[in-house]
């Protein structure tokens, strides 16, 4: 999480407030896998589920590793695609 008083931040994941510098620091340490970055930083785990940050992070990974974008593995697209309230889930599925 970025410091509130820091200035001129470049945000890569808006939902989780992660900066591009934080992502690059991990990549420099050898974390060149989107799945690992997600677990370490929570990038892509907010309300938008990576719709904004995933393409940006994939570009960072491609640039850092010299691999083409198409060869960077993505994370799993699990259900649900958008946040659902627990109360809605607890209401059960309509099986009429």
């Amino acid at each position: 999480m970025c410091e509130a008083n820091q200035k001129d931040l470049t945000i890569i994941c808006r939902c989780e407030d992660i900066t591009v510098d934080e992502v690059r620091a991990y990549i420099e340490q050898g974390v060149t896998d989107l799945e690992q970055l997600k677990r370490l930083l929570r990038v892509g785990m907010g309300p938008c589920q990576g719709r904004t940050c995933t393409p940006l992070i994939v570009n960072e990974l491609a640039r850092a590793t010299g691999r083409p974008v198409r060869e960077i593995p993505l994370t799993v697209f699990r259900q649900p695609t958008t946040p659902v309230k627990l109360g809605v889930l607890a209401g059960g599925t309509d099986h009429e």
Partner: protein
Amino acid sequence: MKHTEIAIVGGGPAGLAAALNAAKLGARVHLIDRNDYLGGQLIKQTHRFFGSKEQRASERGIDIARELANQVTASKNIQVMTEATALGYYEDGVLLVEQHKKIFAIKPERLIIATGGAEKTLLFPNNDLPGVYGAGAVQTLVNVFGVKPGKRVLMVGAGNIGVIVSYQLLQAGVEVAAIIEAAPRIGAYWVHASKVVRAGVPIYTRHTIQRAHGHREVTGATVVQLDENWQPVPGTEKEFDVDVICLSVGLTPLTELLWQAGCRMVFVPELGGNVPLRNEHLETSVPGIYVAGDVAGIEEASAAMMEGALAGLNAAASLGYTTESLGLDRRNILAQLEGLRSGPVGEKIRKGLAQALL
């Protein structure tokens, strides 16, 4: 569990056309959209389309949306579910949908995914300041709600959306300081670009945004020229006093449901990102799952409507529905699509589609 012949996810131009064409052949359709209205991005399109008459030239998107939505609501074969979000697709062929705080399981015989695209964004310092908008948000504010996003705008991206939204901002009485474009050429159709240039808005190609300024909100932006290798040229910085930075840097397909369904995907930059492989019937690698519109590759509303019509006809035909004119109708739409994608303007999309065929 609801059973239906064809479920369509997305009620934008592609989904509406798919629903109407499938229903026309006699298929029973569920049309699912997360908004409380039908039409998708069409409802923000207050400008006239152009092209040929079949492609609804000189009509406005907002009117097309209304007309198609009326036809859809009037069709007894189409059940419309608005404010309904597709939450997931499961290996047993079940689509989970949330509507009005309830969850429905829908098992369709055919599925047409027409979920559209999402806006891309850019990395630059202070890109989280209030006043940094996506072009879609600006279009919603101005054209749907009648709210000005600010007083003076820097538009980033000179594709069709960037240039059209700039013009619509001018119409709304908002100043557009400049349009910048990282590519060496303007991506928009000349008819749109020359309109904003005539109105006095400069377009800087080979320029990008270096940073936004401001403490609590945007108060300005620094723009810099790019060299042939897309690197900033020191000393070419320009300062703009703006309170809005509008990002119009392209869209990417919204493909979650396709990944969940196990459709084979391929990364095609010309189509905006990862897209499903599909055959000439717009059927993906998973039999019975069709795609249409921006989710199959970022294009425009006219193409989305034609793809939707094709997917709708093909999905219904695969269930055994037919009419005497089916073959002719399909060939007609294909010819129109080909026309739309012909010439230099369609070069990128043709190159992209060639990589996405099954």
